């Protein structure tokens, strides 16, 4: 009964015809022109490579973008790659400890092609009530075939259902600072027989 009422109330939420027209018009206009908003400083030296990356990124329609990190004075102190949720696929295996497989959808594209190894910069494990049971950073692990398998400690986790929530990965390449790759990833897993 309550759920029927919920459905009835929610179905009243609709877009107006004007809103639909506006969305179609704006999306059609914006889609071909959408570009990354910044360039990772370390890549500027290889201008041609950067241009190639941009061209390919646009062709593939990727959503991630580089952004400068500034200190309180406004000085650029690094960079971060944002909005990468759909560019890395995450799965968890709980058979022998916890192993997170991070598969890059386009490993031959920047920034992923620069990485030798990948770690988790920020994660937490929550139980089904939403209580945080563990968290921190992990890895890095070597990238092979566009994938990195990162081990996570499972100490203190008993039998039950959990969710791994990752806010950021860290991409490592030789002679360069790790690059934070931010987004939002969630994976549910179950532990038993512990």
């Amino acid at each position, binding site marked *: 009964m309550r759920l029927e009422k*919920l459905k009835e109330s929610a*179905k009243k*939420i*609709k877009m107006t015809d004007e809103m639909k027209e506006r969305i179609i018009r704006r999306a059609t206009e914006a889609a*071909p022109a959408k570009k990354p908003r910044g360039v990772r400083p370390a890549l500027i030296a290889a201008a041609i490579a950067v241009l190639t990356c941009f061209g390919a990124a646009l062709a593939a329609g990727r959503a991630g973008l580089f952004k400068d990190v500034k200190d309180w004075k406004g000085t650029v102190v690094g960079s971060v790659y944002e909005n990468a949720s759909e560019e890395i696929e995450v799965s968890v295996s709980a058979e022998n400890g916890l192993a997170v497989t991070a598969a890059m959808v386009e490993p031959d594209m920047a920034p992923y092609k620069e990485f030798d190894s990948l770690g988790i910069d920020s994660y937490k494990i929550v139980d089904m009530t939403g209580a945080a049971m563990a968290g921190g950073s992990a890895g890095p692990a070597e990238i092979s075939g566009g994938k990195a398998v990162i081990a996570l400690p499972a100490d203190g986790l008993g039998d039950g259902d959990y969710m791994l929530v990752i806010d950021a990965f860290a991409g490592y390449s030789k002679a360069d600072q790790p690059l934070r790759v931010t987004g939002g990833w969630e994976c549910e897993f179950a532990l038993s027989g512990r």
Partner: protein
Amino acid sequence: MERSRAERAEAAVRDYGDMLFRLCFIMLGARADAEDAVQDVMISYIQKAPDFENAGHEKAWLITTAKNKCRDMLRFRSRHPQPDTEYLETLSAGPPDGDSGILEALMSLPEKYRLALTLHYVEELRVGDIARALRVTPSAVKMRLKKGRELLEKKYREEYM
């Protein structure tokens, strides 16, 4: 013959626009934000031009993308608190008139329960389809629905009855 970008976007908005808007509104709590989110989803739809296996695959892709857009917006909002005036405008753009409080109760639940309840009880998606869209196991969806129903009932009884 392949349809143009505009035709594809138009068809997707016509077929799934209201569903996406409802989902984004329930996630974000404001009409303007929901419109922005749907617009971003349509930009991704046009840019990525995915080849869908069937209508179910297309619907799941749109729901997944909308969920991710909303999460990005919520994350941005938590890091960049809005000035008071904008916040008040956001609050004023609440649920539609005639809502008995059940929708407000739903919108006060944690995101994962809100999403699962909306997709199942409002959009009438099956558990397997929700699992596919949210990239979780069917048992996790069932768990979210069970817990979500309990939380919704509790919230509604406490604050709206």
